[in-house]
């Protein structure tokens, strides 16, 4: 909630030339390819959704602008793992009961976006962010019981840096004379993350990887 208000505050326009102040809802796909995450979630792509808000800190009369933004994303993925034990004596596997694991990654970041306005419709941009990813691994080996002994959580964090190239497309003004418009954006880039150790579960996991971001939001002049 507080994040939302923070984003909103930043949206107060400082200059009325271009619609750069923003509030957006975005989907971020992190192609980290980390085996540890894959083991815990069954997938090597973290699919996150989140919110971002930004305010213009500079724009010239021509086309360039610079936005200071901040955002929060969260990915939550779970998997159930069936276990087995290899028996070297018989050469076969013995089945074991499994467990459910879920990895919750929340990323808070601030960054700078520099764009170039083209006919007030098309805004290619460069985007760089710094932030922190907070991971929380939850495991449970008996989902059917709410009081199961083995409901365990391990937490960790790691700094991340994101860099992307994207483009924003302004939608037509919502109403004539309104200073609010809509936009969609697509961005591709790279997230560099430090190793994250998740408490007793160890690791490390590493969320570095290609990034794809897309979203929709409001732009204010």
């Amino acid at each position, binding site marked *: 909630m507080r994040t939302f208000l923070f984003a909103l505050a930043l949206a107060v326009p400082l200059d009325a030339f271009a619609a750069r102040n923003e509030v957006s809802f975005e989907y971020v796909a992190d192609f980290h390819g980390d085996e540890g995450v894959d*083991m815990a979630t069954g997938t090597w792509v973290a699919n996150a959704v989140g919110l971002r808000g930004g305010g213009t800190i500079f724009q010239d009369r021509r086309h360039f602008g610079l936005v200071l933004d901040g955002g929060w994303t969260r990915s939550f993925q*779970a998997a159930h793992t069936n276990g087995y034990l290899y028996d070297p004596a018989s050469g076969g596997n013995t089945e074991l009961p499994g467990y459910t694991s879920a990895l919750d990654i929340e990323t808070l970041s601030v960054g700078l976006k520099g764009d170039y306005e083209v006919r007030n419709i098309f805004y290619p941009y460069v985007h760089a962010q710094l932030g922190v990813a907070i991971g929380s691994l939850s495991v449970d080996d008996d989902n059917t019981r709410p009081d199961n002994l083995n409901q365990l959580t391990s*937490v*960790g964090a790691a700094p991340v840096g994101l860099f992307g190239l994207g483009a924003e497309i302004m939608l037509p003004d919502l109403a004539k004379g309104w200073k609010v418009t809509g936009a969609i954006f697509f961005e591709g880039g790279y997230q560099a993350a430090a190793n994250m150790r998740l408490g007793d579960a160890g690791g490390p996991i590493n969320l570095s990887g290609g990034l794809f971001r897309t979203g929709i939001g409001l732009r204010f002049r």
Partner: protein
Amino acid sequence: MNHRTLLMLALLTTGCGRYDIDPSQYTEEEGLWDPQSALPTDGGLFVRLTRAGDVALLTPGQDTVRVHLDDAEIDSIEAGAGSAVLTRSTEFVCDAGATPSKYVDDCPSDRLTQVGRADLIDASGSVARFDVGAWYGAFTFSADGHFAVAPIDANRPTAGGGLVNLTSVLVIDEETKTSYEVSVGFAADRVIFRNDAEGKAIGMLVLSRSEVANVDLTSQVAVPRATYPLTLDAGQTVTPIDVALTPDNHYALITIEGSGDLYVLDLESPSINIVALAGHPSALLVDPVSDRTYISYKASSRIDVLDHVRFDVETLDVDSATDHLIQGPGFVFAYSRSGALDGYRIDTTTFAVDRYRFTQPPTKVELAPDGTAAIALTATAGVGRLEVADLRQVDGKVDTDVKPFGLDGVGVGLTFAADADGSRALILQDGVDTLYSLSWPSLQVKAVDLPSPPAAIGTMPDGTFYITHQDALGLVTFLDDADNLVEVNGFGQLGMLDRPLLTQEEN
């Protein structure tokens, strides 16, 4: 940032209910820990964390200790000595320059070499380290914990070993923390230790294909004191199956697969005599008190008793063949796991035979610590029973009526411990969450509810029982005399995300 702060931050931003999860993916991975690997020691119960390549030391009422080797992954726990355990582990070495990373999965597979090793581990970590090629099989331990010996496992590859002497066994001296190889014979697979009067291991017999080596362990020599051939025909393979030593360590008695010959090896003046038995033996037991050897047969309803001077055979006729012999105080108990219902108590002084008849074929028999009862788990077509044979003699007579108790399932675990009133047997049943205890001689039954289905049961050195469970994230319960249950859980999670580390080569 410590974990608590992070946790709070995470909770604040997301909300709760994270355990009510509907997973979107289903995978299969190696289990996080091995419930059958539990090994009790003076310092606690060691279990193997299979995913993390570590071991965890569990002690009721105390924090779990995770023992991690920075430069190797632990593959198995072999056996305990005092408060330490001997583990087998693997080092991963990447060719120099192949990768700057420190993780195994970053090294190309064609540049990766695995090196076998053994570590003596206690709560503080690796106490001693021994190079053990991956081609060595499981260790056999001397009773005093002084020595561990591993023969070569012919099924394991010798890659990376250069020229591996396939006739050698590896000896680890746990007191001096040294290891050395002894050349004994090809395809060695059994080791039996010779102990002195105080029970300290002073030597060993190693059984190989068609020969037996007598090795001194008091001095670290690489050559046996004597090697006994079991055949002179190079084309004939004589495979020893069972070996026992006479109490004075003068003779070794060896039964041979598929043969009724008993090889008697004189260990003091090396010579061999072959005693012809009545058939193919099924079990061999040396009774130190009566200084006799008892032999049962697969297909003969008899038990032969051999003296240790002339090796003359005295035959005791029984009603059915047996294949297991257990030593009790003043008697030997014989029974069959091949479907026969009889058990026999053989008095080792008078050689009187008392016959007990179980209601179902026994799968396991344990003797009470004082030898006054034999308790059997019996089963037929999924129906399990616990049957008690009273072995006490009153006025020279025994009560041969067996008392059966029905079980909910098939009994899979049975362990005995002495208690204030005599002794107590704990019975685990397959798929049943309740542990039953049977007191002897009162035959009182008590039930103890377990938190989840058990996997294995055993006793700690201090007499506490431990029960491992199948819970994927780790659960062991400890049970004391008063049936107080203490649970230790969650250790399966330890290191579950760890990535195996490369061993850094010293330059």
